[in-house]
């Protein structure tokens, strides 16, 4: 990993979905650079291509053309197995639906990404406990997702995203399923992580949420419309 390189460097990235004779350009020549330690929101209405952008940034999908360097590493033409490893080591995901496994305790959920990178069991437990303590859930490690509130579940998910010490935390509508109280809680946590030096990209269509970040990338029809610094930075 190149320390000096930007965390995300997209150059003329495009994504075309084909279904039969129909082809849809979900993303057209997007170029975007996100530096280490930035807190960026990608905002736009549905169909603007922000989800596709998030999938490509998250190595869940590969671009049709263009190049993508994640932390200095070219991931635009990687094989499925390599992509899985990149996701495991470099990216922490936070989803709108939390996506915790209901049958596992909070601790086991947080341990999960470490299990896929073959971290020994004892170390897994220590690191997962640390991550859960970090999000303020040290008392709830043995609870299952069903026994936690929405806000608590999302904090478990953030702990899971943190536990691998990734270069990038990618949050896809992390507050979309939360009430306003929990939304503030989660945003406060993400802001705190940002202050601690984490690189965070947040996908949202909510203006209030985007405003909590440092920079907003506006998307429209598969293109980057404009970028603006938010008040929190401008101030």
């Amino acid at each position: 990993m190149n320390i000096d390189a930007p965390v995300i460097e997209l150059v003329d990235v495009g994504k075309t979905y084909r279904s039969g004779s129909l082809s849809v350009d979900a993303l057209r020549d997007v170029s975007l650079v996100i530096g280490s330690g930035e807190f960026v929101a990608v905002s736009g209405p549905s169909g603007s291509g922000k989800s596709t952008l998030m999938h490509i940034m998250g190595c869940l999908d590969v671009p049709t053309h263009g190049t993508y360097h994640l932390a200095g590493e070219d991931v635009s033409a990687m094989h499925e197995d390599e992509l899985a490893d990149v996701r495991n080591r470099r990216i922490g995901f936070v989803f709108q639906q939390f996506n915790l496994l209901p049958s596992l305790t909070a601790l086991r959920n947080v341990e999960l990404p470490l299990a896929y990178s073959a971290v020994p069991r004892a170390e897994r437990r220590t690191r997962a406990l640390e991550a859960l303590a970090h999000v303020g859930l040290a008392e709830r490690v043995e609870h299952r997702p069903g026994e936690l509130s929405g806000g608590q579940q999302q904090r478990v998910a953030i702990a899971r995203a943190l536990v691998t010490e990734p270069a990038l935390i990618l949050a896809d509508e992390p507050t979309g399923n939360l009430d306003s109280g929990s939304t503030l809680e989660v945003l406060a946590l993400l802001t705190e992580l940002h202050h601690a030096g984490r690189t965070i990209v947040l996908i949202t269509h909510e203006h209030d949420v985007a405003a909590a970040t440092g920079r907003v990338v506006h998307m429209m029809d598969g293109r980057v419309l404009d970028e603006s610094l938010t008040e929190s930075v401008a101030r």
Partner: protein
Amino acid sequence: MSWIDTVRTGFEAVRSHRLRSGLTVLGILIGIAAVILTVGLGEGAQGQVRAQINALGSNLLIVSPGSSTSGGGLRGGFGSASTLTRADADALASKTAAPDIAAVAPTTSSSATLITSSSNWTTNAVGTTPSWLRVRARKLDSGRFFTDTENRNAAAVVVLGSSTADQLFSGRDPIGQTVSINNVPLQVVGVLAPSGSSGSTNDDDTALVPFNTAAQRLFGGSARTAVSTIYVEATSSGSLSAAYQETQQELLALHGTSSSANADFTITSQQSILSAATSVDRTLTILLGGIAAISLLVGGIGVMNIMLVSVTERVREIGLRKALGARPRVIRRQFLVEASVLGLAGGVLGVLVGLVGAKILPHFVSSPVTLSPAASCAAIVIAIGIGIAFGVYPASRAARLAPIDALRTE
């Protein structure tokens, strides 16, 4: 992901859908139990037949006079001529000429009326040598068998079959009593234990006398020198065919006959009776086993069905695991382990049900059920194999799911 974690995850997935997993396991369980019980039933029935036939005398060859094979020219049919002699039996007993023969018992038999002071009974009197007891695998209930010395001296002794003793002495101790055959008084020295064989009825109704006594003192006419049957015991069941060859060659040479087609005797082996009896059982076992195997196949399809449902239902989970860095191979392995856990559970429970069934079933059917540990282990392995075989397709489907499609599903 390490194997321990994969197996643990597999068990957790099976446990978290108790009802569904239970029903799937039930399918495998029934198949495995059915296979184990049918195979056990077949084994038991074959074992029973084998035991019954072995009870007649293990590793036994029966040499009868005459020939049952029809040839050209005038020749007597089976049993019509007394072509076997004491000399034949003595030749077969020779260790150098026939090393695979353990013992030989020539017999000469005739219907005879046994008379005591108070009753009489007509039965089959058999003159033989002391080796008869061993060759026919019989035991004595009381007293003793006659000895070689008594045979050589044509002593006036007799050993009675259990039912013959009952007829003549009706409960009194027959040992030391006197029985007359053809006006020759014979002392009863022993009584045979019941043979337990349900086959021939006259096994327990017989009177055994030394061969020489029968030949020289009791029977007249052709019975004096002739031997009606020679019983030959092979050293082991493995050497039965060798003993068969030796017997045939020896007798052909003694009788001056060159080819076995012209032989004036017939050799029957226990094996021929055994194979005839067991072939019926085997056909039945194959038939039932086939039905059981089909039920196992249905159980396997059940596993596939459940795994496919499981994949569809857990699309989000698969997507999440992939997003967290699970390679397709790891996802495939996880679902295969899950399917084999179902198979393993079905196999183990099926064997347990089979064991219980093996205890209960003999009360309803006459045949015993023989379960072998090897077959039980094989059944468990087969059950796991079924889980894996029918899990491959659903597992590959799960592994191929694109993480974005999987995560998008609500």
